[in-house]
C-alpha cells in the first residue's frame, strides 16, 4: 500500500487522470472536484487538470488565481526575446513558466509523487496536472470552515485574556505568534498518522529552550507509527514517559496566553490540527495547581489562592480516607462531643461505613457524569435532583449519615477547585485507594499509602525532567513580578535570566 502511494507522477496526462480516478474513487466521491481544460502556450496546447476538495478550498481563489491566468492570459504578449517558439519547446521549461509566469498564487509547491500530492490535496491545496510534466503543481487554496475565537471554557479567568484555541492549527499558531511577537519563536511542523497525516506543530523559543528538550519532543513525535491521530489527547498518551501513570504528564491548555508564557519560560508547546488544546512539555505536578489567573494578581493574593488549592488537593484525595480511619480506628483522637455527634448520626445507618462512603462516592460520580453528558439546559435539573437525593432523601431514609454528606461535599468542592480537569481524575483514583487503606489499616494505612504515593510521584519524569521535586515545591509560590529574575533551573534553559536584577529602572532613575 505504502509503495503504491509512493508512485511517481507520470508524464502522460491520461495515465495521471486514470490513477487519480482510481485512488480518489472519483466516480463515487462527491467532494473531490476535477476540472479538465487546456493550456495554450505559444500555439501549443497542453491538456491540464485541476483537482481539489470541495469545502476545503477557496473557489474564488481557484477561479481568479489559477484558472483565469491558465485559460485566458496564456496568450500573453511576451517580449521577442522571451517568446516561446514551438521548435524550442524541448528547451523551454514548462513547469517554471507556469509557476513563475502564470500562476499568481502565493504558496506553490511541487509534488513529484502521488503520496505527497494527495497529502496536499487533502489539506486544502489544489493540484494541477499538465500533460508532459511529471510533477504536480500544488497551490494553496485552503479555506477551511473555522469557528471564531471563543472565550476559554475550561480555564476561565476574571482578569486577563479571554481568548481560547480553536480547531484550526494555523489560527492557534498565529495566536501564539501574536502574543510572543519575536523572531526566535519557532513553529516547526511534522505529520503524525499514516492515514490521517495530521499536522502537528512544535513551538519553542530558539534562544531560550533547551535543545535536548526540543530534540526529544521531535524524536518522539517523528517516531509514532500508527494510522491515525485525531486529537491532542491521543498524542499525549503516545509520547508520555510513564505509560501507567494516572497523572497527566503533559499540561493541556486551551489558552494562548498561558501557552505563550510557558514557551517563554523555556518549555515546548505541541499543537495538533483539529484540537483546541496545546500540550506543554515538560509538566511538573504543581503546574496542575496553577491557574492562569495567578499571574494577573498581586503575588500575595496569588500565593494565598495557591495555598488554598494545595489544601484542596489534599482534602480531595485524603479527607474521606482520613474520616473513615479516624471513625474506625482512632476515635480517641476526636473530642468527645464530636465523637458523640458522629456516633449518634451513624446510629441508625444499617450499612458499614465503607459501604456508606462508597455509596455516596458512586452517587456523586454518577451525578457528575450525567451533568457533563446531558445538554446544558438539563444540567441544573440534574444538580437539583442530585442535591435532593444526596442531601435530603438519603439522610432522611437513614441510608447515609449527615456528617458523611458534609465530608463528601467538602471533598467534591475541593476537587472542583483544582484548575486542571485531567488532573482531578487522578485524585478520584487515589481517593478510592485511601478510603480502602483507611478502612483496613487506619491512619497507619494512610501514611503507608502517602509514602508509596510520594515515592511513585518522585519516580515519574516528564520528558526527562522530574515530575515532582523539592525545587518544584520551592517554585510553587510566585514571587512578585519584579523578583522573577531567573527561569526555572530544572529546565536548564539557554537564557537563565528572565530579567535584570533591577527590572523597575524607573525607581532608580527617580533617585
Amino acid at each position, binding site marked *: 500500500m505504502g509503495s503504491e502511494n509512493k508512485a511517481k507522477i507520470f508524464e502522460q496526462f491520461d495515465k495521471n487522470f486514470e490513477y487519480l480516478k482510481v485512488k480518489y474513487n472519483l466516480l463515487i466521491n462527491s467532494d473531490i472536484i476535477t476540472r479538465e481544460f487546456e493550456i495554450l502556450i505559444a500555439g501549443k496546447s497542453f491538456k491540464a487538470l485541476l483537482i481539489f476538495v470541495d469545502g476545503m478550498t477557496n473557489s474564488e481563489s481557484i477561479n481568479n488565481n489559477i484558472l483565469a491566468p491558465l485559460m485566458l492570459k496564456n496568450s500573453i504578449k511576451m517580449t521577442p526575446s522571451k517568446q516561446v517558439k514551438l521548435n524550442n519547446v524541448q528547451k523551454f521549461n514548462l513547469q517554471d513558466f507556469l509557476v513563475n509566469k502564470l500562476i499568481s498564487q502565493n504558496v506553490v509547491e511541487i509534488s513529484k509523487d502521488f503520496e505527497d500530492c494527495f497529502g496536499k490535496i487533502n489539506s486544502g491545496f489544489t493540484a494541477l496536472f499538465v500533460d508532459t510534466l511529471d510533477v504536480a503543481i500544488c497551490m494553496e487554496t485552503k479555506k477551511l470552515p473555522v469557528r471564531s475565537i471563543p472565550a476559554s471554557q475550561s480555564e476561565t479567568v476574571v482578569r486577563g485574556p479571554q481568548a481560547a484555541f480553536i480547531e484550526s492549527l494555523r489560527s492557534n499558531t498565529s495566536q501564539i505568534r501574536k502574543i510572543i511577537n519575536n523572531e526566535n519563536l519557532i513553529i516547526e511542523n511534522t505529520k503524525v498518522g499514516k492515514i490521517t497525516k495530521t499536522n502537528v506543530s512544535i513551538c519553542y523559543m530558539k534562544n531560550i529552550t533547551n535543545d535536548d528538550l526540543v530534540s526529544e519532543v521531535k524524536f518522539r513525535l517523528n517516531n509514532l507509527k500508527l494510522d491515525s491521530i485525531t486529537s491532542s489527547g491521543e498524542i499525549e498518551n503516545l509520547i508520555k514517559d510513564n505509560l501507567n501513570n494516572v497523572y497527566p504528564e503533559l499540561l493541556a491548555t486551551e489558552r494562548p496566553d498561558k501557552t505563550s508564557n510557558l514557551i517563554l519560560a523555556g518549555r515546548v508547546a505541541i499543537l495538533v490540527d483539529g484540537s483546541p488544546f496545546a500540550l506543554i512539555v515538560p509538566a511538573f505536578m504543581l503546574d496542575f495547581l496553577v491557574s492562569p489567573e495567578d499571574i494577573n494578581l498581586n503575588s500575595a493574593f496569588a500565593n494565598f489562592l495557591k495555598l488554598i488549592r494545595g489544601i484542596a488537593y489534599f482534602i480531595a484525595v485524603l479527607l474521606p480516607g482520613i474520616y473513615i480511619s479516624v471513625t474506625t480506628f482512632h476515635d480517641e*483522637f476526636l*473530642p468527645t462531643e464530636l465523637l458523640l455527634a458522629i456516633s449518634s448520626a451513624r446510629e441508625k445507618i444499617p450499612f458499614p461505613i465503607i459501604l456508606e462512603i462508597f455509596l455516596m462516592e458512586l452517587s456523586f460520580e454518577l451525578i457528575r457524569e450525567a451533568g457533563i453528558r446531558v445538554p446544558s439546559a438539563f444540567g441544573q435539573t440534574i444538580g437539583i435532583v442530585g442535591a435532593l437525593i444526596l442531601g435530603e432523601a438519603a439522610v432522611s431514609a437513614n441510608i447515609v449519615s449527615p456528617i458523611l454528606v458534609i465530608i463528601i461535599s467538602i471533598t467534591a468542592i475541593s476537587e472542583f477547585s483544582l484548575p486542571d480537569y485531567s488532573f482531578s481524575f487522578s485524585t478520584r483514583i487515589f481517593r478510592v485507594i485511601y478510603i480502602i487503606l483507611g478502612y483496613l*489499616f487506619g*491512619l497507619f494505612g494512610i501514611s*503507608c499509602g502517602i509514602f508509596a504515593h510520594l515515592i511513585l510521584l518522585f519516580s515519574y519524569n516528564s520528558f526527562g525532567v*522530574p515530575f515532582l521535586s523539592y525545587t518544584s515545591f520551592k517554585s510553587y509560590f510566585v514571587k512578585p513580578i519584579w523578583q522573577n529574575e531567573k527561569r526555572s533551573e530544572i529546565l536548564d534553559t539557554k537564557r537563565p535570566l528572565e530579567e535584570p536584577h533591577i527590572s523597575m529602572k524607573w525607581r532608580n532613575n527617580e533617585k
Partner: protein
Amino acid sequence: MKNKLTVFEAISIITIITISQIVLDFPEYLVDLTGTGTLINLIFLAVISLIFCFIISNIFKNFSNHDIIDISEIIGGKILKFIISVIFIIFLFLLAISGVSNFLFLIRNIFFQNTNKLFVLSIFMVTLLFSATKGFYSLKKLDTVIIGILGLSIFALFFGDNGNFNSNNLVPVFGYNYETTFKTGLLNIFIFNFMLIYFFLMPNLSKKNDYKKIVFSSFGINLALLLISVTSILLYYPTSITHSLTNINTMNTILLVTRRIQISSFLSQTDSIFIFIWSFAILSYICFLINSIIYILNKLFNFKNKSKLSFPVVLAILIGVLLIDRIINIEFLENIVLKYFSIFLTFGISFIILILGYFKNKKKGLNNAKKAVK
C-alpha cells in the same frame, strides 16, 4: 549521576536514620543505662564521636571515589571485600528486621491489638517492596520533603507542652555515678551508628568537596535531635518509671511522651498524629536499609538489574520479622546484638580498615615517588 547526593539530600537521609531510631525508642536504652546522667553522657560521647568524624573526614579526602567496601578491597583484596560486605549486609538485615518488628509491635499495641500480625505486616511490607523497586532516587527526593515535618515532630516532643515538665527529673546531672556515666556509659556510643553512612558517602556525593560539610552538619543536627529526645524523656518521666517501663516492655517511652502533649482541648490525644508522621520516618529508614543492602550486594556481584533484588531482600526481612515472635527477642536484638554490632562496625572494623587503607595509600604514594626519583 542520578543517584548522587546533594548536601541537603545526604543530611536528610542521615537525619531520618536518627529520627527513626528515636521513634524506635533507642533513647530509652540510653536513659536505661545512664539514668539522669544521660545528657552529660551524650555530650561526652559526642565529643569522642566528633574526633572520629574529624579523622574520617580527613582520611576520606584521599579516597574521593571509594567507600569502605572499596577500601577493604584495596587492603585485603576480594576476600576481605567479601567478608566486610557480608558483615555489613548482616548488620543491615538485623537493623531492618528489628526496625520493622519494633514498629509493628508499637502499631499493634496501639491500634491493632486483636488483629493478625501478618495482616498488619502485609501493608508495611507491600509499601516497602513497592518503594524499594522504585529505587534510591525517589527515596532521596522524598526524604528532602519529609525531613522538615519529621524534625518538627521531634522538637514538638520538647515544646509540645512544657506544663508537664519536672526539672527535678534531671538531677543528679551526673547520673548514678561517675563510672556509669563515663565508663559503662561508653556503650551508649552505639546511638551514633548513623556515622556508618560516612564510610559510604564519599563516592555517592555529587560534589566531593561537600563531604566535610555533610559530616559535621549532619552530626550537629542528629546530636541536637538526640539531646532533645533524651531531655524530653527525662523531663516527663522520672528515670525510675522509664526503667520500669523498659522492664515491663509494654510501651514505647517516646510515644508515652506524646500522650502527655496536649495541643488544645480539641486535640487532646495527639499520639495518632505522631504515629502517622513517624510512619514516614520508619518506612524511609527501612527503605534506605533495603537500598543499602542492594547497593552492597550489587558491589559484590554486579547485577544487571538492581531493582529485581528488592523482592528477595524484602522477603528475607519478612521472614526475619516473622521469626522474631516475642518482644523479648526484639529487645535482645536491639539492646544487646545491635548495640555491640553498631559499635564494632562504626568505631571498630570500619575505622581500622580506613586507617589501614590510608597507610597503604600513603605507602603506595611513597613507593611511586621513589620510583619516579629512580
